[in-house]
């Protein structure tokens, strides 16, 4: 039995459906990341599960129990807010102990648990510190400890690492994943950062305008985006209308090889930048180099063909051509994906 199940959950703000008949399941000990641009309804999803947002239709089930009419404070879920929402008038220890006090945990047990959690999140002995004096990363850790302290059956994270700088974020993602694995916590997180989602999640749910656009493991979603929206959201812009016939597709870029099991007929094709090879002009689609973007270990080269949308090619630092040069382009079937819509 799944720990969390959403059945056709719909939330409307006025006439706009922020969540539109969303179905979702999270199994015990699983980490699920909801990924989507801002305004796609991700945060509302968490608020619905926590009982902070009433639903217009549908049900929320926790451990099989219908949560309709169960107020927030009886749902035994944890929620880490986007901007932490630490209680400013309490010190670090008081914040972490809050959930335990609400459950009537004894003083000695509370103290033991607070100590344990602060050790766990890497802030040992911080009980008496004021939350105002903490750095962003430290507040993050206190918020996490506070959410974990009452042992919620489901831990929800709203943009857990959104406000932190990049290096800290990358380190914390690894720490969090390791921590959740060790504790066996069931986690539902939302983020707009694909890197964060792929690094943290067992399963990724991509949302668009209140609906679920795709569900899958990070690898599945990355390798086979289901739609042009998902592809573009993941940062892939080489999308072109195509007509598939056998292992070839006819496009504005000329003929593109496709993987063997591609369905026949009209569709859109995605070519990942890694599958765009630069060749001498005579041997492929003739393009002009219009720009270059440095990406650390590779360079993204922007190409304008005579016909069809612009292309991006990933290539090595030394092999990258200068803007203005004319190059030829060939495609690898491995990196070509047929999109459903």
């Amino acid at each position: 039995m799944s720990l969390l199940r959403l059945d056709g959950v719909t939330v409307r703000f006025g006439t706009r459906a922020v969540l539109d008949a969303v179905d979702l399941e999270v199994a015990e000990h699983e980490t699920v990341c909801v990924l989507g641009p801002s305004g796609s309804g991700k945060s509302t999803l968490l608020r619905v599960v926590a009982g902070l947002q009433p639903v217009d239709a549908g049900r929320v089930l926790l451990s099989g129990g219908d949560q309709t009419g169960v107020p927030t404070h009886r749902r035994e879920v944890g929620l880490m807010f986007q901007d932490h929402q630490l209680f400013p008038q309490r010190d670090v220890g008081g914040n972490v102990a809050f959930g335990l006090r609400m459950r009537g945990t004894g003083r000695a047990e509370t103290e033991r648990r607070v100590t344990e959690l602060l050790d766990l999140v890497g802030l040992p002995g911080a009980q008496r510190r004021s939350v105002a004096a903490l750095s962003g990363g430290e507040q993050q850790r206190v918020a996490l400890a506070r959410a974990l302290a009452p042992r919620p059956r489901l831990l929800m994270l709203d943009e857990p690492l959104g406000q932190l700088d990049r290096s800290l974020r990358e380190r914390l993602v690894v720490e969090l994943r390791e921590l959740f694995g060790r504790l066996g916590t069931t986690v539902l997180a939302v983020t707009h950062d694909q890197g964060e989602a792929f690094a943290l999640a067992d399963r990724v749910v991509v949302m668009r305008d209140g609906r679920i656009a795709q569900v899958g493991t990070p690898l599945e979603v990355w390798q086979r985006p289901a739609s042009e929206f998902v592809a573009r959201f993941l940062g892939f812009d080489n999308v072109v209308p195509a007509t598939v016939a056998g292992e070839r597709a006819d496009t504005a870029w000329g003929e593109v090889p496709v993987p063997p099991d591609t369905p026949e007929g009209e569709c859109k094709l995605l070519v990942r930048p890694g599958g765009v090879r630069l060749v001498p002009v005579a041997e492929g689609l003739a393009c002009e180099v219009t720009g270059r973007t440095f990406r650390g270990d590779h360079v993204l080269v922007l190409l304008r063909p005579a016909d069809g949308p612009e292309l991006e090619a990933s290539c090595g630092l030394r092999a990258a051509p200068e803007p203005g040069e004319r190059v030829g382009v060939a495609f690898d079937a491995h990196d070509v994906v047929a999109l459903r819509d």
Partner: protein
Amino acid sequence: MVLDRPEVTVSEKPPRAPLSGSRKPRRTMRPTAVRLGLMAVPLAFFGVFFAYPVAAIVSRGLREDGRWQLGRIGDVLGDPATLHVLWFTTWQALASTALTLALALPGAYVFARFDFPGKRLLRAVVTVPFVLPTVVVGAAFLALVGRGGLLDELWGVRLDTTVWAILLAHVFFNYAVVVRTVGGLWAQLDPRQEEAARVLGAGRFAAWRRVTLPALAPAVAAAALMVFLFTFTSFGVVQILGGPRYSTLEVEIYQQTAQLLDLPTAAVLTLVQFVAVAVLLVVHGRTVRRRESALRLVDAARTARRPRGAAQWTLLGSVLAVVALLVLLPLAVLVLRSFDGPDGYGLAFYRALASAGDNGGTFVVAPLEAIGNSLGYALAATGIAVVVGGLAAAALTRRGSRLTRGFDALLMLPLGTSAVTVGFGFLITLDEPPLDLRTSWILVPLAQALVGVPFVVRTMLPVLRAVDARLREAAAVLGASPLRAWREVDLPMVARALGIAAGFAFAVSLGEFGATVFIARPDSPTLPVAVARLLGRPGELNYGQAMALSTILMLVCAAALLVLERVRTDRSGEF
């Protein structure tokens, strides 16, 4: 409005606020039901102790033989004497407001943006006049510019026969309103907004005019309206400094009611003032709502710095000079006069306060007993005001609906309604069972609480609204029930504001004069009533005792205020 209640007569049961909303909470309507429930107590309080007495006295003035004599309104309004009072009331209020703004806006800037030694103390000092009883303000200016006053003695200058005495006393009284309302916001405006305009090519003045001024304008308007309201309804100051020539509506109502016993005229004047104040409050409400629009506010402590250059030092110097001349001097003269006895400086006047006999029958009891009376009444009034105002503020926390906005405006009405009318209304309405309070001591605190409640609401509301709803949500997710979340999250954050609100309610209750003068029993006068009585008698001893008693009253108020200044936070209200 409250006055359209022709069926209300003295013998009827007082109107009760509707309670049905809190009795039948429907599931989907729960927040509204809770809000109505919270409103019930304040509504009942205002219905019984404000609307009912005021309506009763107006109807008594305008009804005869069971019929409305509406022709009287025309008669009174057509009377040149009435028009003269109305004209004077309006123009002195306008002049006072303009003068207050001109003198206090530079002060607001200096207190907001400059750091200088003694700033906190000085801010407390300029606030002292605002909580001072108007009677004391009048007495202080009398000692400064009146017959035998300081200016008279030094240069033979007397202003108490001119309107200047009234205007200056009004500035003295309202200086703090502008400094606190405008300066409070100014201090929190992000200076980087102006810097952004400068970077985009605006000159220093253009940046101020296009960025800071628009952000500040609603606060200036709100402060100006507040000052206009206070001066339009001015009673104690004009009563003492106006002499026979100048009287405001409020003073006229008092004279018509208490001395000429012309209730119809008083009723019409009350209505006129009521309408004017209602219009002002609607305008004020709109202005304040606009002020709450999205402004980038920062910690006030970060925006102030030490003055730099000759121009800024000159500005600081002139503001300090204005404060010294206008605020400190009258207070100092008042204190000085209280020691200036017939046999040289000494405590003669203070000693005289201790006995009833020396006053030629002015008092049944020793004036000093007024201190105990005042403190007792003010404490009780504070208790009532905190409960009623606290509930009202809680009901108003979630902004928005028309209902709450109307309720908000209703709570402010007592500030502008003739206190004399309220006091007299108490006498004629609360004298029969089930509300026979005529002989009860509670009558005075009830009347005083009416003026205390608006201060409590204004102080509590911004703090309650500033509590982030998501903190409550965070508490709920961690297992706190709504009540528990309120206790754990809201209460600790508003506790300080509650203390400040109580302090303000205490100070204004202590100084309340217009209503108290009617209902305080002769054997238990309050401090302001005793001061007014002493000032109303001839003779140096009475005058000296009035000064001594005013000094005591001032010290009590100042002490209350200094305690407030210690616990004050930056975002704690408009006053």
